[in-house]
């Protein structure tokens, strides 16, 4: 059977799933509900979180149980329901593009661990 699931990419393009597996109308057929240690490593890398190897199995177990719980969402068909992002459905207010705050660089940089000449310092990124 064909997966009839369609993604909206982050850029807003709609695309067919192409996984070749069957999925209910608004759900991908290949969703992973149980995470392995390697999945947790990948997610932690995406989230820039260094985890200790010893903790990975426990995170895998806990995240899997949360995903299994969240899976209840798929007991209802929502194909014809529009997503709701703002509870009152108001759009964000925009303001004129003018400077409204004074320069507070020194006050803000006083909070940083390592600053030199008004710059935030990090380990070398580009090799010379």
């Amino acid at each position, binding site marked *: 059977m064909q997966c009839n*699931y*369609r*993604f*909206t*990419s982050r850029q807003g393009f709609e695309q067919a799933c192409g996984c070749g597996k069957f999925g209910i109308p*608004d*759900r*991908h057929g290949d*969703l992973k509900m149980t*995470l392995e240690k390697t999945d*947790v490593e990948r*997610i*932690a*890398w*995406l*989230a*820039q*979180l*260094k*985890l200790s190897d010893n903790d990975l199995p426990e*995170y895998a177990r*806990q*995240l899997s*149980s*949360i*995903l299994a*719980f*969240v*899976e*209840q*969402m*798929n*007991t*209802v068909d*929502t194909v014809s*329901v*529009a*997503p*709701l*992002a*703002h*509870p*009152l459905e*108001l759009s*964000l*207010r925009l*303001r004129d593009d003018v400077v409204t705050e004074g320069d*507070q660089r020194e*006050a*803000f940089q*006083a*909070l*940083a*661990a*390592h600053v030199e000449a008004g710059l*935030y310092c*990090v*380990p*070398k*990124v580009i090799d010379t």
Partner: protein
Amino acid sequence: MYKISLIQLSRALDRREISSVELTEIYLDRIARMDGKYNSFITVTAELAGAQAREADQRRQAGNNGPLTGIPIAHKDIFCTRGVKTSCGSRMLDNFIAPYDATVVEKLRRAGMVMLGKTNMDEFAMGSSNETSFYGPVRNPWDLERVPGGSSGGSACAVAARLAPAATGTDTGGSIRQPAALCGLTGIKPTYGAVSRYGMIAYASSLDQGGPIARSAEDTALLLTAMAGFDARDSTSAERPAEDYSAHLDDSIEGLRIGLPREFFGEGLDSQIGVVIESAVKQFERLGAVVSEISLPNTRLSIPAYYVVAPAECSSNLARFDGVRYGYRCHGAADINDLFSRSRGEGFGAEVKRRIMIGTYALSAGYYDAYYLKAQRIRRLIRDDFQRAFAEADVILGPTSPTVAFKLGEKTDDPVTMYLSDIYTISINLAGLPALSLPAGFVGRLPVGLQLIGNHFGEARLLNAAHRYQQVTDWHLRAPEGCG
């Protein structure tokens, strides 16, 4: 003096029976003597409080004061306070001295309130028991072996133990109402957009709302009036005129239509809590309210949807903590990725990491529709349920929490079990509605909270109904042993 309510304190200050300096001393002294056993404060700002109290007394002398001038308050450590450590309950911000005041802090300061300090909380407001705090758990003044609820657990504990007449809190899925319920207090989560989020450290921005925790609806209304209002610095702040939430407290509730959602009284609710709520319903009927059963059919989906929407937003909001500009920075980073990932790995606790990872996963390529969009669709179903219910009812009534305060450590091993303690509160945040919790009785010696839910911007009506109930009951006057 610590025994009387905020409104009574205001009158005592008016009549010059006590000065703000004396009053502030009383509370600072109680905190110094008693908070060792509760752990409700992360930072006590004794010196600053003294200075603010002196200023308040001068304002009162000059007749330049409002009802809150000179009354002490504690702020949840999620609100930025200029020059004062603002940790959000996290190692990540243990070294963070906020360079500015949150709008809520600024407004209460302008009203003349005296800040006693910053209260303990679940790390980044992620928790329902105050056990995820980097600064250790808070104990419930009604039973020291039990949790005060969370995430505003320190605020609720401090008010219940009479270490402060009132406190600020924030509520993303129940974090004002559930601790208020578990500690026998009155607390309100306002409509999304009613209280400015500026300077309130973000967890899930489409759900977060600040609000007061106090002993009565009357006290809560006075505080909310000072806290709420349009703020240009919060792009989701509601553009509407300022409101006096105390103006309709005494109105009759004759004919008020109260709806009881059958989904809030089923499986999972402690039957003894059910009995307490039923007797409160009878009390509301005696006050003239007309009670009927309603249905919120998608309630069971609220926690699953929340645990996609909130982690997704948190994974994005908490991306700012990188060890570079402020906050915790790991030692001896080998390269830039090591700096980011170790600062975050060492700076965040386990529950925060879990939620960041769930959110990261839900938003990752190929999963976005299945998790995030799906959850947003369910969010609409939940909101629509409420809108249908509000055609039949002016106010929705139910329990705030399915259980009374549970034991420390009882739910820490299983995140999902902990999440279920917010079953009656979470849907309200997803729908952006106002809701308050007020004390309605006891199971054994532990307080039970009753929740009143209103339609958008219906706070005044909720406070009115709660106040009328508190005029004929005394649950809100009870204090934990040794605190009254």
